[in-house]
């Protein structure tokens, strides 16, 4: 279990999830320079949306058949919340000092989290999420769970789709233009408001996919799971270079692998035997963030951007 390939694989799976969430942060940030703190909660509501769909389906339904429906349900919830947040919370503040949208984002994050806690039936406790089956596949010495296969497949499909969309479609290129220079983009006839909404929507969509993957992977979802996942995903986005969608995925993978390795191997370092294990994983992820900010603040793939103050 504790072989290096296994740890790398574990990190890869975890990292794919971080990457999927991180895309939402990075796209929004790239276009409106706003950290959407509520994105972790959008991820969480996606998972709850999918769970609601599952609960509405007839008992005993095949999970593989239900999965597309759950994804659609989660995506609808997440995208609606993301777009609604943009329209009603962030857009009115677009000209305001930078602190204002950040505080709004914090408020939104609290409100969404607590709304699920208070009004989703039974959300005071962890909710069970359907499972794909427990028998792992074996690839050499590596054990791969079915849910991990779903996760990686989803991440690859999403990533390829997004890359194609951004590169080739008209809207995608408008998006790149808006990220580079919103004023000029608008002068060139691009409806920047529409582009911003689309960026939020794509972020919400990917977050919903990640939310379903999270539920499948851990078997349980909670109303406050968005907080830590969001924090990690933001770390991943910074790690990869915020504003860069490939960077977000890469950052996610690096963070996931680093976390898996830290959990498994830090305890072997002399003098640090008590600092390994799951309890310290978040601490090491955070230390990694600080180190990256010190050494390479623009992130792995980011370009050196002058502070557009």
């Amino acid at each position: 279990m504790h072989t290096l390939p296994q740890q790398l694989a574990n990190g890869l799976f975890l990292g794919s999830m971080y990457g999927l969430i991180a895309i939402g942060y990075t796209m929004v940030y790239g276009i409106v320079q706003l950290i959407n703190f509520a994105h972790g909660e959008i991820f969480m509501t996606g998972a709850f949306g999918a769970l609601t769909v599952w609960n509405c389906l007839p008992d005993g339904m095949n999970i593989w058949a239900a999965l597309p429906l759950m994804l659609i349900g989660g995506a609808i919830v997440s995208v609606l919340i993301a777009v609604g947040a943009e329209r009603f919370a962030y857009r009115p503040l677009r000209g305001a000092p930078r602190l204002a949208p950040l505080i709004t984002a914090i408020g939104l994050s609290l409100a969404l989290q607590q709304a699920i806690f208070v009004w989703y039936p039974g959300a005071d406790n962890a909710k069970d999420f359907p499972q794909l089956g427990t028998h792992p596949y074996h690839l050499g010495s590596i054990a791969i769970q079915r849910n991990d296969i779903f996760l990686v497949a989803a991440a690859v499909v999403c990533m390829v789709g997004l890359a194609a969309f951004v590169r080739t479609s008209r809207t995608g290129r408008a998006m790149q233009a808006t990220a580079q220079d919103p004023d000029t983009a608008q002068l060139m006839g691009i409806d920047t408001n529409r582009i911003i909404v689309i960026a939020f929507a794509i972020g919400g969509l990917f977050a919903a996919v990640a939310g379903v993957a999270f539920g499948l992977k851990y078997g349980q979802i909670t109303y406050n799971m968005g907080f830590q996942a969001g924090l990690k995903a933001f770390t991943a986005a910074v790690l990869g270079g915020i504003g860069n969608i490939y960077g977000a995925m890469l950052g996610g993978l690096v963070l996931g692998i680093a976390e898996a390795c830290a959990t498994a191997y830090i305890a072997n370092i002399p003098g640090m035997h008590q600092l390994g294990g799951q309890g310290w994983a978040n601490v090491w992820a955070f230390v990694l963030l600080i180190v990256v900010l010190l050494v390479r603040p623009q992130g792995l793939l980011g370009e050196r951007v002058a502070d557009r103050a």
Partner: protein
Amino acid sequence: MTDIPLTEPLQPTPLGTTHPDAARSDSFVTLPPGVARIATLVGVAGTIVSTFMSWTYTSAFPGDLTVNGYPGGLQVLTLIGAILTGLVALGAFGVKGLTWLVPNRSPNAVLLLAAGTFATTWYAVIAIAQELGGLANLNPGGFVAAVASLVLLVGTLGLPIDRQPLDPSGAEYYELGRLSENGPARGTYRWLRQARLNHGELPVPDPARAPAWVQYLTIVVVAAAGVKVLTYGLATGYTELFIGYLILVVFTLWAFIAAGLTRQFSKITADHRPFAALMGVVAAVAYPFVQNNEHWANLGVNILIFGTVALGLNIVVGLTGLLDLGYVAFLGVGAYAAALVSGSQYSIWSGVEFPFWAAALTGMAASLVFGVLIGAPTLRLRGDYLAIVTLGFGEIFRIAVNNLDGVSGPKVTNGPNGISQIPDLSVFGYNLGDPHQFGSITLGRFANYYLLMLVITVIVVLVFTRASDSRIGRSWIAIREDETAATAMGINGFRVKLIAFALGASLAGLAGTVSAHVTYSVVPNPYQFSGAAPPNSAFLLAAVVLGGMGTVSGPVLGAALLYIVPEKLGFLQRYELFAFGVTLILIMRFRPEGIIPNRRRKLEFHQDEALLPAQQALGDGTAALGKAGA
């Protein structure tokens, strides 16, 4: 507000609105002026009389409203509201000797007070009917009160009201235009927009012309009244009374703002700042003597700790514009540092017992070190990074102290059990744990800590005000408003920001050292991002934002509100954090400067509205996007 030059022809009124000037000075309900005045006074008289009658048969409703001839419980609040309304109404009608109550002669104050009285009375009546099951439980007195306060409200609605004229610059019309496809929404919006009362801008007589003793007396009276109102609110024994109190206080304060009284008072305090500050301190010192009860002293000391930490956060968020989302961790660092050197037997250095001054310095130093460690890598970058890094730090701090129990990590903090049995402090040979006798008044343990904490609060207030007026404070504000411009003016942005961040952290550490001793023990749980009880980072941020960023009184007021309201309204607990989140969003949308605005801060948040109309029309689309990149 932009004035329209008289020489220009009047603009055609868009979307059927009346001309801005016509929107002013008309009433909500059309009544002949004499009738409105008489209705107001009759309503006041009727309401006052009703409070001396019995409102209900049984004493099952708390506060005993059954007695004829002696108001009790919620009746007292109605009585106070009605008397205030009457006095202010007479003042607004020009009765000699009372006009000072309405310095700007605006009738809005009467309307607001009447609305407060009406709301309190009807709340009481409805609460009686609802809790006791039906209107049958009301005595005639209750009906008299309801009808009289309704007459009062209708009468004041018939008075001419100062409404805010529609902003003739582009923004209003732009908003209206956007809604123009949706008829009902447009109508509602216009109605709401027109209903907005106008206050604060009418001229008031300069209070500096009053004799000096009147000005000093005013400050003393206001300070005493403040203590009285606050202690009354704290001492309210049941939820209904507290809700009534809250309604009345909010409307009364609003009415005083509308009347221009607060403007005059802030002018007086600005003219006599040292004396006003002294009176504030005297009022705060008097609190444990007036409210001589350990429970309230405990509440007081917790509010002070919370308020002091909020004030420290205000340096970071309010003055420098850096968003610190893990601020409570610095409080935790200070508390843990103090606990470790307190001599508690659960500390790993159980033999070490520092005197208070040394423990306080240790706590500050520990927080300072962490502040610099977190700030140094992040403050060179855009502000947003700081927000997320501090959020992470807050979370990591809690995880780390949870794990440092000797099993999942090195043994430092005793894990989830925390460090308990922290001995009481001893200051100048005066043990804060023992009750002490002052004449006939005994000060208990929490009262002692309250006074100690008050000293620390005063220190923090001094640091805050002196720093914000100093060269460095002005650079903080410059950085907050425009970092690029400030840097171009020769301010070393990184250094100045790091000083603010480290100063804020060490002030939180200082408060933490006291809080460790007050609560006897430190455990990891309270130091999280959001939770049901203060202090946590979300509550702290809410206190600063709600109270007013960049002011001294704002965060303290915010902290007091956020501490007392959950304490008094226990039934809201489940919805509390949800309400917080929504409050933060709404404040940022509609009143980003908070309850007590800092003048410069307010201008900054509303700079768009100060733009010329021509710029505004364009500004909403293009310029706003450009600034989002700012």
